[in-house]
């Protein structure tokens, strides 16, 4: 999504968000992420206005004090930016890809099932299975921090059985243009 993203050309405008809309965003974020209201309050205080940065292709980035925190594609789920995820790694369910896949992930590729099901990868166990369309943190074999944020294209159980093709679509990753963009 952010492989090619030029702030000069791809941003349509900044607008402060209405407080009623902010409330609904806050409620949605709280229901979609595993985050305590207090923590969310610490990263995004109620008093601080959220700024909506409208970008091309229906991408909305929400910033607090110019720092991008949340983004969204069309009406989809809210994603944290990778820097935010590094600070609070537990807010999204975690998947792991094997070492061989890191290279491709850093090039912006989507994550294929074999990379997640192989020995170095990790998928949540059957009782905590994720359904398709869940935002996930993509971690990597032998690494401490997340390397990307993605959305599952298949349920985790399906990934195990099918084991072919795209399992997780990469949304943002280490080194993409959203990563380079530290302030807006």
């Amino acid at each position: 999504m952010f492989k090619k993203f030029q702030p000069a050309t791809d941003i349509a405008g900044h607008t402060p968000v209405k407080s009623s809309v902010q409330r609904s965003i806050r409620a949605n974020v709280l229901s979609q992420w595993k985050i305590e209201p207090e923590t969310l309050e610490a990263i995004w205080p109620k008093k601080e206005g959220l700024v909506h940065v409208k970008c091309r292709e229906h991408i909305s980035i929400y910033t607090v004090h110019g720092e991008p925190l949340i983004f969204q594609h069309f009406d989809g789920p809210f994603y944290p930016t990778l820097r935010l995820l590094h600070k609070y790694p537990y807010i999204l369910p975690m998947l792991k890809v094997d070492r061989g896949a890191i290279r491709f992930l850093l090039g912006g590729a989507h994550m294929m099932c074999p990379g997640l099901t192989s020995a170095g990868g990790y998928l949540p166990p059957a009782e905590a299975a994720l359904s398709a369309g869940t935002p996930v943190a993509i971690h990597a074999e032998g690494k401490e921090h997340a390397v990307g944020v993605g959305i599952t294209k298949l349920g985790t159980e399906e990934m195990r059985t099918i084991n072919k093709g795209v399992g997780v679509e990469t949304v943002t990753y280490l080194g993409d243009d959203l990563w380079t963009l530290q302030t807006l």
Partner: protein
Amino acid sequence: MPKKGKAAAAAPAPDPEAAVEPNAPPPPEPVPPLAVLYCEVCTYPPEYCEFGASLTRCKDWLKESHPDLFDRYYSDEALQAKVGTLSLEAQAKLEKEVAKKEVKAEAKVEAALKKKMASQIIIKRSERNKRKCITTVSGLEAFDIDLKKAAKQFASKFATGASVTKNLQGLEEVVISGDVSDEVLEMIENEVGVLKGIPEENVELVEEKKKKGGE
């Protein structure tokens, strides 16, 4: 600033409450953020430097500023553990690729620098009326200067109007009303405010005479 003040005010608050009701569960507190170290060379967390395009420089940086982490990521055992899963051949190939990438990235940086050094800043004075001039400064963007900020700075410094406009070529330039070309040159030489990192020899003063219809 209000953010910080609030956090500081919120922290001591739970204590007196806890003293009053020792049996009550402590009020929920925000989970502190994890402090993540980022490499100053490639901006990745240092464990991912190996996938970046500047591994050698990243390594040097880490060795100097965080020797303990350097040992953790680049000691022989750590390297062994990483290689463990790969065949020797694949490893050699990977290494080669990384080296190639590094050379490429370096060349790219160098080319960009060269281009930057070659680019010119043109301060142009053109006549608007008989006795009135405007000064246009173009080429500032090549030196990573925020044009809007530069315009603002010029405006407040000279107490005149200054704005960013697109010229005929579609490039953005700063337009200042009044003849301030010499002062602008001086400001660039002294690196005032946002005007930083411009070599003097790249600045050119140009004077443009309007075709004089009346004379």
